[in-house]
C-alpha cells in the first residue's frame, strides 16, 4: 500500500507542468528583513502544498525550514499562510491553486524564528493559564469508580475538544494581531471544552481569567477563526456563548446577590 501511494505521487498532471512557489525566507544570521524566494516545482495531481515544500527541501534547497509531522491534518504543525489564507499545508492541494505563483509564508501574528517556523510560546502559556484539565472540588477515590457521562453530556463539549492547536485561528484573528494580549480563539474554545464537561467543576476558576477584557471581551466577532478552523471547532461560537453566559451570570449576581457563586 505504502509503495502504491509513492508510485501515485509520480503521476504528473500535464506533461512536465511546473508551478512557482514563492516562499518566505528569513535567516536571522543573514538578513534582518525577510525575502520571498521563488522555486519551480513540478505539478503532481495528488500533491499538497506540503509535498511541494518537501520537494524543495529534498531536491532544490535543503536550507528551507518548516514544521510538519503527520501529513494528514491531525498534528496541527504544518499551518502556514498560503496565498494569504491561514491553512494546513498538508490539506491544501497544489492543483487547486494553479496556475500560481503560490505564495507561502509563516502564520501571521506570531514572531518568526526562521523561514516558515513561528514562535508559539505565547499560545502555550495562555493555554496553560486557563487550566485545560478536569478540575474537581473533591476528587472521588479510585474505589468509587469512574466519572460517568452520557452521550448527550459528551455532545455538549465534543466539538470544542477537536482542536489540534494548529493556530490557524490566531493567524486569522486581526484582534490578536493588534492586541497580542488577547487570550485568543483556541484557548477560549478549549477552556469551554472543560467548562461544558459535566465532570468538571472549574468554571469559576477559569472565569476569573476569561471574564476579563483580555479574555472574552476583547473579541469583536470578526468570525474568521471559525472560517479557517480545519476541525470545525467554531471558536467564535465558543467565545460568543461564553459572553452570553457570563452576562447572564452578571445579571443573576446583580438581581439575586444571595444566589450562591
Amino acid at each position, binding site marked *: 500500500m505504502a509503495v502504491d501511494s509513492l508510485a501515485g505521487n509520480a503521476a504528473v498532471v500535464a506533461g512536465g507542468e511546473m508551478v512557482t512557489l514563492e516562499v518566505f525566507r*528569513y535567516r*536571522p*544570521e543573514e538578513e*534582518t*528583513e*525577510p525575502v520571498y524566494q521563488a522555486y519551480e516545482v513540478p505539478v503532481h495531481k495528488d500533491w499538497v502544498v506540503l509535498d511541494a515544500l518537501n520537494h524543495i527541501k529534498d531536491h532544490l534547497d535543503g536550507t528551507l525550514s518548516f514544521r510538519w509531522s503527520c501529513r494528514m491534518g491531525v498534528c496541527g504543525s504544518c499551518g502556514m499562510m498560503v496565498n*494569504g489564507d491561514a491553512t494546513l499545508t498538508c490539506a491544501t492541494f497544489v492543483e487547486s491553486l494553479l496556475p500560481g505563483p503560490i505564495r507561502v509564508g509563516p502564520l*501571521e501574528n506570531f*514572531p*518568526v*524564528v*526562521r523561514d516558515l517556523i513561528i*514562535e508559539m*510560546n*505565547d499560545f502555550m*502559556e495562555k493555554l496553560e493559564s486557563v487550566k485545560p484539565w478536569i478540575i474537581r472540588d473533591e476528587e472521588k477515590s479510585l474505589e468509587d469508580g469512574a466519572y460517568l457521562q452520557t*452521550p*448527550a453530556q459528551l*455532545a455538549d463539549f465534543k466539538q470544542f475538544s477537536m482542536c489540534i492547536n494548529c493556530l490557524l485561528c490566531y493567524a486569522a484573528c*486581526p484582534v490578536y*494581531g*493588534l492586541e*497580542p494580549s488577547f487570550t485568543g480563539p483556541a484557548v477560549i474554545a478549549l477552556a469551554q471544552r472543560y467548562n461544558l464537561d459535566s465532570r468538571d467543576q472549574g468554571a469559576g476558576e477559569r472565569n476569573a481569567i476569561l471574564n476579563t477584557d483580555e479574555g472574552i471581551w476583547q473579541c*469583536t*466577532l*470578526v*468570525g*474568521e477563526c*471559525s*472560517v479557517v478552523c480545519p476541525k470545525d471547532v*467554531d471558536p*467564535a*461560537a465558543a467565545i*460568543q*456563548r461564553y*459572553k*452570553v453566559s457570563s452576562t447572564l451570570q452578571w445579571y443573576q449576581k446583580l438581581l439575586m446577590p444571595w444566589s450562591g457563586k
Partner: protein
Amino acid sequence: MSANPQHTPYHPRWYRASMPIFWWMRRWIHARFILRELTSIFVAGYALVYLLQLRALGLGPEAYARFLDLLRSPLSISLHGVSLVFVIYHSITWFNLAPRALALRIGDRRVPDKVIAGLNFVAWISISAALAWVTLKG
C-alpha cells in the same frame, strides 16, 4: 513573558511583522467586518433621532410639528435613506451571526444554524411589518 527575549547567538533575532493601518483592506472578509462596525454609527444615529423626537413630543405640539417639518426636509430624507441601507446591512449581518451565540438543543440534536438565523429573520421582518402597518395606517 517570552515576548521580549534577549537575543544571543543561541537565541537569534525573531522577525515580527507589524500590522499595517489598512490591514482590513487586504481581505474582503475583514473589510466586511469593518463595514459592519461602521454601520453601528448609523444605528446610533437612528436612536438619537428617536430620542430627539421624544423630547420634541414632551415640549408640546408646536415643537413636535417643527420637528416633523425638520424630518421632511430633503437633507433629512436623504440621510434617512442612507441610514436605512446601513441599518439593514447591520441587521442582516447581525442575524447571520446569531447562531454563533446561540446553541439551542431539542432533545439530543443541535438546532441547525440556518434555523436559528431563519427564526431571527422571520421575527425581524414580521415585527417590522407589524410596526409599519400600525404607523402607516394611522
